[in-house]
């Protein structure tokens, strides 16, 4: 599962936990069960407004059992380990450091390319396109399914459709050809510089 899917699933779990807990407390606190005449099974928690949130009795119900404290500590340790892994998963720079390239068949030659070299090559070539102020390229994904993530800053007098066309026939096509990956997917984000105005404006176009 991708990191995005894990993130969304975990945020959903935490959100549902908060939502259900809050709704239960509110329903009990405003005595919705009594007012609306709702029936609830006997084990249903938090039903009466006069009830404490967590009574001493329910907090200490199992504290004298042998399994209670090892279970509490074990669950907390698992929770912490998961949260720790999840936190560091956000910080990790994704993407392979080296790309294994399909080598021509002359026996035992392994072709490897540092991802940074590819990123810099595409960056440089994209930056040289007309009306481009700068480009930032990252190779993400994994070895088998790499993905180029490109951010291009366009001059505000530039044309996005031309830029896309030039990028696809220029830097991207060259990268795909030289890597032997004709299907290398690309995410391109176009930003436009707001201060791209020339100091001396051209004479206004007459419509």
């Amino acid at each position, binding site marked *: 599962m*991708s*990191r*995005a899917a*894990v*993130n*969304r699933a*975990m*945020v*959903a779990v*935490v*959100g*549902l936990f*908060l*939502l*259900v*807990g*809050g*709704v239960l*407390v*509110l329903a*009990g*606190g405003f005595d919705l069960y009594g007012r609306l005449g709702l029936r609830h099974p006997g084990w249903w928690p938090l039903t009466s*407004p*006069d*009830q*404490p*949130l967590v*009574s001493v009795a329910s907090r200490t119900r199992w504290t004298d059992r042998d399994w209670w404290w090892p279970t509490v*500590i074990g669950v*907390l*340790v698992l*929770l*912490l380990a998961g*949260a*720790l892994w*999840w*936190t560091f998963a*956000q*910080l990790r720079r994704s993407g392979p450091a080296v790309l294994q390239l399909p080598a021509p068949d002359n026996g035992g030659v392994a072709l490897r390319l540092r991802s940074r070299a590819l990123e810099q090559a595409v960056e440089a070539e994209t930056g040289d396109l007309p009306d481009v102020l700068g480009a930032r390229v990252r190779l993400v994904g994994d070895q088998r399914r790499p993905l180029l993530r490109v951010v291009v800053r*366009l001059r*505000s*007098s530039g*044309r*996005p*459709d031309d830029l*896309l066309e030039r990028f696809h026939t220029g830097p991207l096509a060259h990268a795909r050809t030289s890597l032997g990956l004709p299907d290398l*997917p*690309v*995410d*391109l*984000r*176009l*930003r*436009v510089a707001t201060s*791209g105005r020339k100091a001396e*404006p*051209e004479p*206004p*176009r007459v*419509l």
Partner: protein
Amino acid sequence: MTVQNPAPPARDAEAPGPVRRPRSPRTAWAGLVAVAVLVIGGGLLHDVIAVRTGHPARPWRAELAHQLAVRHLDDTPVRIGAGIAVLLGLWFCRLALAPGLRRRLSLRRPGAVIDRAGVAALIADRTRDLAEVDEVAVRVRRTRTRVTVSGAADPVLIQRHLRAELARIPLAGPHQLDVRVRRLPGQAGEQAKGPAG
């Protein structure tokens, strides 16, 4: 007026099916929630182990247990806390389900997006090039762009020109353009909304 995006050019080898909206990986929110879980769980674990090894419980946990035991469900702080939990829960569910990245608009090429602020900058740049335009404000939303121009320019011409310019930005979805011209003081007031097209 909706700019009809023409069919993608045939030279585009990557068959453009329905363009998928990019989805945010929710990195920042995930990190925030993970750190919150880490802090709460870590504090709890530390204190539980301290108590099990013969140390007294920390005052915060004793106080928390006491409050949970004496506060009833209809106490105002409990209700407020539960209300906050409900709102936070709804917000998290929305974060989990909604695509996010609302500041970017999909372009017709697969995987290509443009910032809405970028569309605004492009349109503003084109508008300033026109004759008799003094000031221009561009507001780009997800499906419509509103351009407010002050000056003596002809709204119909501006509209025609900007419609062509907007069509040159290969946006994936339908996008509407509203042009308003605000006359400067001394000129005849006119609030023009271009003809539907």
